[in-house]
């Protein structure tokens, strides 16, 4: 099955639609990129940062270098915020710099060469804790936002299966449960991220909310979202409708859909939510999880699905588990099969150097010994080139 997927992708690459899809970059920008390749600047800032801010033009030559995301883009592309520690770093440095790494470049290459007539391909980013799966996902989302795709981003699926208050029985299906708080906050973020699409996409069915309110056929999708935000009780149903409509209309070619879920193993794991009778709920009894499971199936075309596995927020999974089989379980693996697995590993020596250089340039490493060779060797030893550990170490040095 994996061979069939790779043949699909390589087949698309032979036609080489990537170059033609996004067009040749304009002359001055390509000249800048050309100069960037040709004359590697020896100044310290250039070795760890690159001036290429457009993810579409990131290539092998930018590997290991940091690129800056403009702060106003952050508010529209990542309205829910970034992972907490990265968010703190952004606030401290007043800039958001992501490192361009191999897994992200691989994913970008695949996305540039997607054939939108074929069913959506599922890419799963997996790896040990702290290796950079979530930030690679953020890189890909930034690329798709720049390319004007419709982004369906669930920042952490684990938040939907634990610590939820105010569970209601679903009006649509008596056996399922609604989560008004989570659904309404997600709708708010979805609205901020995709404002321009909400007026263009029209609903293809009439939806009756209650005796007095209903959404007619042909109304913009924005109305459904507004309904979900104003009437919090209907928020989960609004989310379900949004997912259904987007799936139905993604094939029409009016927009390209990216489904990005972080911590997708939550959908097939266990929950810690209880019913009134104090018995544990299964994830399929939650309407949000049910809708998302349908979204992640590859029975639609006109986009791509990028998923991340995460042990950090997961429930009842051993700490050292990171492989797809271990985290997803049999049910999840069978549901996601076939997918393209992309391993995200620790920093290579060049990437480590670049990261330490970036911290030194921003004067983040204040300890006098941290700037010496001995200090760098010790940092490498203590963190084992794990990006998350390195960040935590450098925070107090």
């Amino acid at each position: 099955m994996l061979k069939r997927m790779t043949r699909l992708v390589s087949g698309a690459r032979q036609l080489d639609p990537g170059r033609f899809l996004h067009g040749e970059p304009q002359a001055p920008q390509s000249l800048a990129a050309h100069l960037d390749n040709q004359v590697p600047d020896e100044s310290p800032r250039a070795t760890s940062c690159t001036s290429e801010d457009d993810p579409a033009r990131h290539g092998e030559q930018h590997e290991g270098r940091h690129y800056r995301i403009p702060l106003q883009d952050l508010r529209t592309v990542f309205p829910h915020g970034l992972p907490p520690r990265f968010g703190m770093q952004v606030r401290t440095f007043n800039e958001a710099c992501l490192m361009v790494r191999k897994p992200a470049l691989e994913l970008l290459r695949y996305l540039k060469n997607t054939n939108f007539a074929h069913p959506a391909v599922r890419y799963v980013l997996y790896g040990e804790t702290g290796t950079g799966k979530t930030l690679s996902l953020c890189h890909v989302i930034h690329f798709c936002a720049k390319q004007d795709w419709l982004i369906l981003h669930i920042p952490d699926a684990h938040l939907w299966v634990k610590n939820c208050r105010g569970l209601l029985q679903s009006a649509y299906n008596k056996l399922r449960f609604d989560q008004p708080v989570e659904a309404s906050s997600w709708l708010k973020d979805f609205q901020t991220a995709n404002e321009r699409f909400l007026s263009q996409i029209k609903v293809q069915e009439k939806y009756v909310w209650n005796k007095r309110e209903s959404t007619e056929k042909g109304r913009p999708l924005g109305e459904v979202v507004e309904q979900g935000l104003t009437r919090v009780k209907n928020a989960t149903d609004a989310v379900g409708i949004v997912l259904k409509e987007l799936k139905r209309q993604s094939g029409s070619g009016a927009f390209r859909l990216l489904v990005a879920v972080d911590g997708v193993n939550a959908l097939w794991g266990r929950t810690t939510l209880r019913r009134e009778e104090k018995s544990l709920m299964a994830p399929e009894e939650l309407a949000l999880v049910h809708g998302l499971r349908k979204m992640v199936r590859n029975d639609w075309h006109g986009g791509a699905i990028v998923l991340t596995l995460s042990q950090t927020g997961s429930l009842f999974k051993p700490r050292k588990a990171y492989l797809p089989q271990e985290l997803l379980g049999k049910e999840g693996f069978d549901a996601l099969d076939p997918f393209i697995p992309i391993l995200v590993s620790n920093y290579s020596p060049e990437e480590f150097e670049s990261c330490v250089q970036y911290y030194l340039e921003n004067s983040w490493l204040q300890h006098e010994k941290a700037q010496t060779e001995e200090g760098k060797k010790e940092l490498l030893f203590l963190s084992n080139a794990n990006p998350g550990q390195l960040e935590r170490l450098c925070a107090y040095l």
Partner: protein
Amino acid sequence: MAAPAVKAARGRSVLALGLRRAVPRLPGLSQVRWSRYGPEYRDPQIDKEYYRKTLAELTEEEKYEQELRKTQLIKAAPAAKTSSVFEDPVISKFTNMMMKGGNRVLARSLMTQTLEAVKRKQFEKYHAAAAEEQATIERNPYTIFHQALKNCEPVIGLMPILRGGHFYQVPVPLPDRRRRFLAMKWMITECREKKHRRMLMPEKLSHELLEAFHNQGPVIKKKHDMHKMAEANRALAHYRWW
């Protein structure tokens, strides 16, 4: 062979210690803190550079030193002491004083979170300040920590001395280690007691350290109070006989 020698050493250590200390720390009171090691025990060599030198590089004295260490008894290195380049004895001592119930892991993590909080606050101030002020803002959490504790050290202390059935608070010069201890003790007590129930230790401690760095705040006030009391009781200074 080693065991009876060690036992004999330990047996000797009690007497040796009693004989050694000519000047007691407190008048009329005996030593409280014993060491299980006798005087013949040497301190462990933690320094990595010492062991990296090859035979050719050593001088005569160092060769003699190395040979001697092979026959000498050496104390065990404490678990908290590392050969890391980032190690700081002051931070280590402070962490030990913050520790409760032997939970050094928790104390160390609180300490690192405090240093991180201090750094982030200073970076925020740096970015908000104008170009001329940026040079004056100190962003190194270690210098801030050391300077803050130095600012909190009292110069003179008070000691209760019994005269004629009454205890008088007599101003007394403090040795260095007592001053450092008092500064750290005041800082930790202040942060533990005078904070809101829900406020976390790193947040409070970082705030107090920054205030002490600028010679403000409750710990500096406590130091000044101590100085004022000593100044007020200076008539009693002749009660001190050492």
